[in-house]
């Protein structure tokens, strides 16, 4: 299989996974202005939960992913409702809290699942390769691309087409006006936080056949989510989508074409873009 084809497919697949991870972060930050540094931990926790359901109780892969997402969403919701809400507007306290919780989650995972990496098999129907027109594609990665697109469309429908979405957009644009209009902003916040956390947890489980699950997964993935959100602009779903694919391509082609610069392939473009356009590619200038 030609190198370029492999890299392209992987870029899109990895981008899809990143979208699932970072869409949540982007919404949370766009709406609530909380830099949620636990997001990598949600990803890892979703993976560990899902893998446990599959390994210990023989639950089917997709079902395990959904249950894991729900569990992580609940955890996220509780953290938002009982802790983060009291810190509204206090950015530094939010950073302290989210980092503190990420330490706790990382250590808890080490205690519960030990340091050994866990490998999860993709669902049997999606294992192996598919042949299309003489070219070979890893089936599971194609599945991830399709799944990410489906979820992207669903999220877009949610944000643009429903009342909840309208409220979210209002809250992102101007939270005070939104309150004046009678929007229950606190319920909205909890809902969005749950949604974001759940998406991250789902992404973790979905990604595990490719990335496996190991201590340190959270700190490997969080910087990537941050880069996506910065490139794409916070609060913008389209921005997250484009940003995810940009990062996916940078990551794959950058490492392959410029192996000497492998450590810089993500952050150098990020610095350049931020210096020229601090609000990201699709974000709005902060008020």
């Amino acid at each position, binding site marked *: 299989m030609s190198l370029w084809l492999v890299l392209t497919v992987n870029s899109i697949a990895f981008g899809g996974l990143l979208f699932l991870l970072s869409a949540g972060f982007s919404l949370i*930050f766009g709406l609530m202005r909380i*830099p949620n540094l636990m997001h990598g931990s949600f990803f890892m926790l979703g993976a560990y939960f899902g893998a446990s359901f599959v390994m210990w109780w023989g639950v089917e892969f997709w079902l395990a992913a959904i249950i894991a997402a729900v569990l992580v969403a609940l955890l996220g919701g509780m953290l938002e409702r009982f*802790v983060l809400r*009291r*810190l509204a507007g*206090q*950015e*530094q*306290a939010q*950073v*302290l*809290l989210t*980092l*503190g*919780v*990420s*330490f*706790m989650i*990382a*250590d*808890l995972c080490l*205690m519960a699942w030990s340091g050994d990496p866990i490998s999860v098999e993709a669902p049997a129907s999606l294992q192996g390769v598919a042949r299309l027109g003489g070219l070979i594609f890893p089936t599971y990665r194609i599945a991830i691309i399709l799944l990410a697109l489906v979820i992207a469309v669903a999220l877009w429908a949610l944000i643009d087409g429903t009342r909840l979405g309208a409220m979210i957009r209002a809250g992102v644009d101007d939270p005070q006006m939104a309150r004046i209009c009678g929007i229950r902003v606190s319920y909205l916040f909890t809902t969005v936080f749950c949604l974001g956390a759940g998406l991250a947890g789902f992404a973790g489980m979905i990604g595990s056949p490719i990335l496996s699950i190991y201590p340190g997964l959270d*700190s490997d993935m969080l*910087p990537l989510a*941050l*880069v996506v959100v*910065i490139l794409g602009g*916070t609060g913008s779903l389209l921005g997250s989508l484009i940003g995810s694919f940009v990062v996916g391509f940078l990551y794959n082609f950058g490492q392959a074409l410029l192996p*000497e610069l492998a*450590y*810089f392939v993500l*952050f*150098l473009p*990020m*610095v350049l873009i*931020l*210096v020229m356009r*601090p*609000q990201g590619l699709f974000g709005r200038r*902060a008020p």
Partner: protein
Amino acid sequence: MKRLPWALALLVLAAVPLWAGGSFYVNIVSQILIAAIFALGLDILVGYAGLISLGHAGLFGVAAYTVAILLEHGFSHSIAILAALGMSLATTMLFAVLALRTTGIGFIMITLALGQLLWGLGYRWIDLTHGDNGVSGRARPLPFGFSLDSADHFYYATLSIFLVVIAGVAIMTGSPFGASLRGTRDQPRRMTALGFDVWTIRFIACVMSGMCSGIAGILFFYYNEFISPHALALSASAEVLLMVIAGGSGTLLGPVAGAALVVIMKSVMSAYIERWNFTLGAIFVLIVLFMPEGLVPGSRRFARFLWAATKARRGAAPARSGG
């Protein structure tokens, strides 16, 4: 009488080698002071300028590496230290010019990215830095012929530098510049309207912050006699940020308290608590829940509350007061 607590603290610090209980503990206090210098530097940005940076470990590391590499190539300590301070200044100015294009999350992200670039350089510029093998130093400087090899001597050198730094920060924050810096944090638009050059004020704050990080980096290298890219990792930047916030940003003693908390948990308590990482995270969460402004302001508030409560009790039962 207001100076009494400070004098007592100074006395306690000066006597550390006497009461700490061995060279290991003296070294721990040295490590706390080095971390405190680093945290004080970061606090200039986080607490007084309102700019959160996740890349300060890069500035810290640049200074440490400069000393290490120059020493390895045979330069004297004085030249190595001066060059490290110079590199620190240059790198910080570059950081500041790039990062100050934005504030808020943009600033956080640019500093994160710049820190990561420096970290990557540490790994990849193998000819210079030996990659993850790091650079070792075999000797400590001899200021005025005074040997710094023993834990006690190194501690006194570190203590002197710490006192200079904390005095400097205190003077800065009390000065008109400090006031205008806080102004740019609280009301940037009003400051601009009043004719202050907000960018330049922030730039100067960045430079001061970077120099403190550089000083901490130089001390760190001499203390460990080793530097490797791990000191520039994102986790190191996150750790110093946590020290500042947990201790109380925007206060003089907050960063010191935060540094003490983290160093003691990591280096001392880890011998007694196996899951110290979890415990540290839990402590941070508790601080956020009960003292979101930080340990130092929170303790002051708690102390004032206790004082007011005891006063109220005495006031409510005048017959019992002994006079």
